[in-house]
């Protein structure tokens, strides 16, 4: 498979009054052409910062690349000038932000916000751009798009704003689409439409998608592969089946155990105990160790490397070291593993 983007040993910090916030602490991943890679993980773990660093959208005065490279089309994006980046942004790599208000201009009617990138990156007339814009709005499920072109962002609901942002990002048929919580503000039916839309686009122009979300149901629906982030690092990466049916990292176990199920009884939800690591002074060993009932002595001292589970599945936990004791994952995780050929709990039948 062709690699369209490679993130290598990425380290990035913010210089703040309180000190150096080590937000990204050695992130590695490849993005293949036409695939959807989902990034999940704790709030504050560095998902948005990772993708914003690809787009070079971090505040220049405080964000600092410490190490690593981001390779796209033979170039290292961390080294490009602002001007070169401008040509890539919005055209070759587009991004949908977590919060639609940050990417919409509150003082400009949404129609113009849609036609501007079209006029900038494509050779079309104003009238054509307007037609494309209306079509895009209709495509993302906006009722009466013609009438709403003249309205301002505050006149739309949260979910409608997000759909406008999605329409803008799709306008130029990008090679890579980075979607940061694109459907969080949407109801499940519109969400399903948007996910279909993104999949269609992917089929049509072979776009690669990086999809950040907290909704594991959405991940199960869209992802080919999943990267799990914790404390500024990727702690586990694998195919969607490997992560959901054969997870190896205790943080991934915690994540999968925190979901309420639709037929769950009225008991308390499981929440991972403790607080996220302090990125001003990240712990020496495994950043998750202090919150994990599976932690061993070595977790406090040394950062675990990636252990290979399969050709496509890696996890950074000392539990995978040949000398580590065998531990029982949580019950809900064992239930999942029963469905996965190759897991030690596999029961042969898959529903």
């Amino acid at each position, binding site marked *: 498979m062709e690699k369209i983007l490679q993130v290598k040993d990425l380290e990035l910090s913010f210089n*703040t009054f*309180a000190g150096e*916030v080590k937000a990204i602490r050695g992130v590695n991943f490849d993005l293949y052409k036409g695939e959807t890679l989902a990034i999940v*993980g*704790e*709030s*504050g*773990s560095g998902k*948005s910062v990772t993708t914003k660093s690809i787009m070079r959208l971090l505040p220049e005065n405080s964000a600092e690349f410490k190490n690593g490279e981001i390779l796209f089309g033979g170039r290292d994006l961390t080294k490009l000038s602002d001007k070169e980046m401008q040509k890539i942004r919005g055209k070759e790599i587009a991004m949908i932000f*977590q*919060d639609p*208000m940050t990417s919409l201009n509150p003082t400009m009617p949404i129609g113009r916000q849609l036609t501007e990138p079209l006029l900038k990156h494509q050779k079309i007339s104003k009238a054509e751009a307007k037609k494309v814009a209306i079509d895009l709005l209709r495509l993302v499920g906006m009722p*009466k798009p013609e*009438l*709403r072109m*003249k*309205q301002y962002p505050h*006149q*739309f*609901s*949260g*979910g*409608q704003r997000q*759909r406008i942002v999605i329409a803008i990002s799709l306008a130029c048929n990008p090679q890579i689409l980075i979607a940061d*919580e694109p459907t*969080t*503000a*949407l*109801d*499940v*039916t*519109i*969400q*399903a439409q948007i996910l279909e839309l993104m999949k269609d686009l992917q089929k049509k122009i072979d776009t690669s998608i990086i999809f950040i979300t*907290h*909704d*594991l*149901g*959405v*991940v*199960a*629906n869209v992802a080919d592969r999943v990267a799990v982030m914790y404390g500024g690092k990727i702690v586990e990466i694998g195919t*969607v*089946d490997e992560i*959901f049916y054969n997870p190896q990292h205790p943080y991934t176990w*915690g*994540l999968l155990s*925190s*979901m*309420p*199920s*639709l037929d*769950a009884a*009225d008991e*308390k*939800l499981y*929440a991972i105990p403790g*607080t996220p690591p302090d990125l001003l002074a990240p712990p020496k060993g495994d950043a998750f160790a202090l919150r994990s009932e599976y932690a061993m002595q070595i977790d406090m001292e040394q950062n675990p490397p990636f252990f290979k589970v399969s050709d496509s599945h890696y996890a950074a936990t000392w539990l995978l070291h040949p000398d580590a004791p065998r531990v029982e994952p949580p019950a809900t995780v064992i239930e999942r593993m029963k*469905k996965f050929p190759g897991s030690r709990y596999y029961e042969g039948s*898959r529903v």
Partner: protein
Amino acid sequence: MAEKLLEIKNLKQHFNVGKANEVRAVDDISFDIYRGETLGLVGESGCGKSTTGRSIIRLYDATSGDVFFEGENVHGKKSKKDLKKFNRKMQMIFQDPYASLNPRMKVMDIVAEGIDIHGLAKNAAERKQMVFDLLETVGLNKEHANRYPHEFSGGQRQRLGIARALAVDPDFIIADEPISALDVSIQAQVVNLLKELQEEKGLTYLFIAHDLSMVKYISDRIGVMYFGKLVELAPAEDLYKNPMHPYTQSLLSAIPLPDPDYERNRVRKSYDPAVHNYAEGEDVRMREITPGHFVQCSEREFESLKATSARI
């Protein structure tokens, strides 16, 4: 649970009235909220959930209709003092944590805003301690008090919004998608927290959200909105087991589950309002099908829904 804390009667909120782009964001809805319950509100993006919440706490003046809080009309003429009293009793946690936090204020002052307005702290030391406690309650810590909103992740900001709402010790909280920006483990923490606070303080919630598995988990009753109207209202369990309005059925069939095999084989039901085939001027309104289970329907649909549910 029989005591009504809020009564919403024929509430309408229309924007741009009389223009081509008139929006009937909330179009004649009525429901009650009982003291100590959580009423979930779900529905299509843009159907009017936030507007309903905002009208209830009077961020907007309603186009028409009434909202009674403990029997008093919130939308009638009110003195500044009365409004202040309502403002303390009813708090809102907003959908959009970016827009709702002042970027130039430190966390300490953001969280303490309500404490200051209502004079709830005796002195600076007490104010500080209250803020520290609130930060801890929402899973942050006191070191965060000196930072500015932009230094926080999306999820962390949402927790600030919750701390701020809790600061004035309200009776009723409208939580407008309070957890959508949080990771699942913190969602679980926040939902557990909201439930605990409810038990401790007898809080009442209007909980607006898209994550239907969470809504079901936290709510006693759930209302489903579609294009400015309430189309179904039922006890949570009942709504999931026996959804009656075709829009509710479509909504439930679209819930994504954290199971790739299931997702690859999922079948969605779509909703087309044309299925009702209502005649011009037909009397379509909320009707009670089984005890506590209301559906917007015509007389004809009512009969058939009643017949069907009698068979179950």
